[in-house]
């Protein structure tokens, strides 16, 4: 199993190899994922006359924004060697909490917005606390939270959708300043900030180092459990933001929102080049991964493929992406 983290013993050779290296070093993006995205776009353009239009591109970005924010959370947690399976459920819970604040309690929009993101961050903090203080594996804790958050969302909403958010809140989901949907703007701004943090700050570097070797990080004096706690809190907070984008777009708090979204988010992070076992990850790569998922879903919709098949497609893409990653690592360590 150690070959999961093996690093190539030789610099990459040839034009393809050098392009690969340059892509990762300069852009923090895996070349393969860029090419897959390009091929998908070309294929879709050929298959559907509706694909290549500004409005459809905005559609793709809009559909990608929720998953994209979750995928950013997945990138942080995965590259630190952790795992957050509760992303989708926490997103659903956050949307319901925000809607309950706004509709049932009549809270002003800023309070409701803070409650939405805060509910996610709180759920994430509970994850982080149990993982770092009680030493229960992240897989179990976040799997448990997947159930708890979903159940709590149903309890709070009494199993019903909470309709009728205030106008200002709906603007966050449906507003179109300069013709660009608000969720897309929020998603891009979040991605920009989170990319800077991961690639250029101590927090980001420590995140990757912890995922690479917890022992090395600890020896270097990094407070690993505090850092992990912050990461899970951040992950929950981002799930809360995704919940905000989603609920404000559909103008309601839906307790079933975000069902199985963690699958898509983790897939997007991994096809974007995040190492499943930690130590490597970039938000730009994840953006490409999320766009691949978005184009794939959009394309299957345009081609009128039943949505059941879309689930199968996403699952297959996840397995294939990890397979290619492992296959390349093994090939490289054999050279």
């Amino acid at each position, binding site marked *: 199993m150690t070959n999961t983290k093996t690093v190539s013993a030789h610099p990459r050779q040839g034009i393809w190899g050098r392009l690969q290296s340059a892509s990762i070093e300069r852009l923090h993006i895996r070349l393969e994922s860029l090419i897959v995205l390009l091929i998908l776009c070309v294929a879709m353009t050929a298959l559907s006359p509706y694909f290549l239009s500004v409005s459809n591109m905005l559609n793709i970005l809009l559909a990608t924004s929720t998953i994209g924010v979750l995928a950013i959370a997945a990138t942080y947690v995965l590259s630190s060697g952790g795992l957050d399976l509760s992303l989708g459920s926490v997103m659903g819970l956050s949307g319901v909490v925000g809607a309950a604040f706004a509709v049932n309690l009549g809270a002003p929009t800023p309070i409701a917005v803070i409650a939405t993101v805060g509910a996610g961050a709180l759920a994430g903090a509970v994850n982080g606390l149990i993982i770092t203080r009680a030493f229960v594996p992240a897989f179990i804790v976040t799997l448990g939270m997947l159930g708890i958050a979903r159940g709590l969302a149903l309890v709070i909403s009494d199993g019903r959708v909470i309709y009728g958010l205030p106008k200002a809140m709906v603007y966050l989901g449906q507003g179109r300043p300069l013709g660009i949907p608000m969720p897309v703007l929020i998603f891009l701004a979040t991605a920009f900030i989170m990319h800077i943090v991961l690639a*250029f700050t101590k927090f980001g570097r420590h995140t990757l180092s912890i995922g690479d070797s917890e022992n090395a990080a600890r020896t270097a004096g990094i407070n690993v459990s505090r850092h992990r706690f912050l990461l899970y809190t951040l992950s929950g907070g981002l799930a809360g933001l995704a919940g905000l984008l989603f609920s404000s777009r559909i103008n309601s708090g839906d307790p079933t929102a975000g069902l199985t979204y963690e699958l898509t988010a983790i897939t997007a992070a991994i096809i974007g080049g995040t190492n499943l076992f930690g130590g490597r990850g970039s938000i730009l790569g994840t953006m490409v991964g999320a766009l691949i998922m978005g184009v794939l879903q959009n394309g299957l919709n345009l081609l009128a493929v039943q949505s059941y098949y879309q689930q199968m497609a996403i699952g297959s893409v996840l397995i294939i992406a990890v397979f290619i990653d492992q296959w390349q690592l093994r090939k490289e360590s054999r050279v």
Partner: protein
Amino acid sequence: MSLLKIEGITKSFGAVSVLHGVDLTVGAGEVVGLVGDNGAGKSSLMKIVTGMYTADSGSVTMDGEDIVSNTPGERRAKGIEMIYQDLALAKQQDVASNIFLGREPTRSILGMQFVDGKKMRDEAQAMIDRLGARLPAINRPVGSFSGGQQQSVAIARALTFNPRIVIMDEPTAALAVREVQGVLDLIRQLKREGIGVILISHRLNDVLSVTDRIVVLHQGRAAANLVTAESDMTAVVSAIVGGGDVAEAAAHELSAGGD
């Protein structure tokens, strides 16, 4: 004048007594080998020096100053640095990231603190050059390096703390024969810079070739304190196993060195 002075250290874990009054001194620019069989107490003794363990009795002084009450962090600040056998490197990160892990230099842009990548790379390169170590490229993940090159990175990281004592735990154990010389050269470089080195090793040939003195631990006691120049393999092996006829074992150790 000795820099680090350890006197009368005793330590037991429950009913198991590991160290029974061990003395050891290291001077500036002195390389001291610490050898002994598994379980002789080498690791426990070094953890008492770095502050990971607390001795039951005895004193540890640095420059005549008692450091027994200091935490590991404070001892590091006083110049005691340890390089563990597993090196504690983050293998997917590059050389500079590893050298500055946990204390990255930052610069402020618009009031926010960003890691200063250029400064990190420059200073890492300067440290590698100072050591005279050969690395394929400073911007490659250290996991792609050979064992000896990784050892160089770990030593370079230790040096950035401006240590006065460097403790190395089995630095040559996992290395190819060719690379051992490189690491021994690095140890000689530390000596030239006036840094005291404690070398823990099972490879007696390496110990004999690079140290000034050899302290042999046997069942929790310093069984011998040999001046390397006046000693030989037979004397060291004899002290390790606790006397008796060791000609055969010594011959084996010599031939095992091979080079």
